[in-house]
């Protein structure tokens, strides 16, 4: 994770704000400087992407690019914790950005008021050091995966359903990519799925932790592992996954 991160000197204000995490073994001033100089793209800032973005803002990631189309609806509000009731009918991404800027005015927040698509994918990924996938549709996820593999950018794939969730840290060329695991769009996945906001937030924060470790150069990133968490029975499991040598997306890396 050295390639696009510019050199960054921590300021006194940085040391004051992030002091408690500078003491984390393996993070320190060097890791924090990497976080401050990093750009993270979050695709969708709803139930998963919202708390994920909040944790990245708290950690002091230098720039967040929030990608999410559409306007806030009442049935978003059980889980999309960056939103507010007085934003109903307005752009979700504007509400998310306002919350994040108020929470941490010392980071840059850019908004893209449309979802990840064929037209914007290459440009968006090119501008980020890391991509966090919190989208509800596999078509969007596969597009993100394809573009991240093409540009050799790490992708943290976060997903949830019901009281469960999973996180897959993807480093192109080193780990299985999303298409290694799912070679086609799953026929039975539906746009509407059961969700409790607290479960989304837990899974989002596992994704945020994996991304922070990657960006800061810390050890312990769960490479070639799918992190699965069933919050109903509080079972956390790491599943060993493998690259598919015949994968159409990453097989030739």
């Amino acid at each position, binding site marked *: 994770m050295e390639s696009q991160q510019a050199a960054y000197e921590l300021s006194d204000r940085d040391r004051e704000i992030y002091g408690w995490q500078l003491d984390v073994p393996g993070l320190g001033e060097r890791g924090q400087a990497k976080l401050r100089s990093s750009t993270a793209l979050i695709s969708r800032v709803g139930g998963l992407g919202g708390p994920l973005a909040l944790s990245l803002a708290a950690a002091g990631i230098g720039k967040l690019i929030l990608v999410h189309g559409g306007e806030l609806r009442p049935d978003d509000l059980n889980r999309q914790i960056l939103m507010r009731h007085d934003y109903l009918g307005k752009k979700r991404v504007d509400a998310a950005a306002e919350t994040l800027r108020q929470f941490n005015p010392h980071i840059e927040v850019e908004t893209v008021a449309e979802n990840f698509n064929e037209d914007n994918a290459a440009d968006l990924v090119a501008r980020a050091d890391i991509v966090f996938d919190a989208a*509800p549709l596999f078509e969007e996820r596969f597009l993100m995966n394809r573009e991240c593999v093409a540009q050799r950018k790490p992708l943290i794939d976060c997903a*949830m359903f019901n009281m*469960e969730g999973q996180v897959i840290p993807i480093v192109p060329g080193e780990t299985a990519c999303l298409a290694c695991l799912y070679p086609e769009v799953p026929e*039975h996945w539906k746009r509407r799925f059961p969700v409790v906001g607290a479960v989304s937030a837990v899974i989002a924060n596992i994704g945020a932790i994996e991304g922070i470790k990657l960006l800061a150069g810390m050890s312990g990133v769960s490479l070639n592992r*799918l992190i699965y968490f069933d919050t109903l029975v509080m079972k956390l499991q*790491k599943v060993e996954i493998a690259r598919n040598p015949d994968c159409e997306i990453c097989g030739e890396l």
Partner: protein
Amino acid sequence: MTLTMDYTGQLASVTGVAEEQVEVGEGECLLDVLKARLAVHGEKFGELLFDDEGGIRSTLLVVLDGEQATGDKASVSLSGVKVVMLMTPIAGG
């Protein structure tokens, strides 16, 4: 031998259980076991597991004792395996 079957995602929803114990005969492969479970859990369970040709769906993750099964999932040997975890794809946000 007794095998623990773990179901996640939509499979857990349609079966109503996250885990069950099943008896597996000597030499039975994964496809044999899943077809036997189909008789218990019904059509929706089968739709999540099998494609139109009756093979195991390419998008179903099969995990044997914590490790993803690769290659031909249908014929995978269960000899010595204690836990089979079946994971349907999820993407909720």
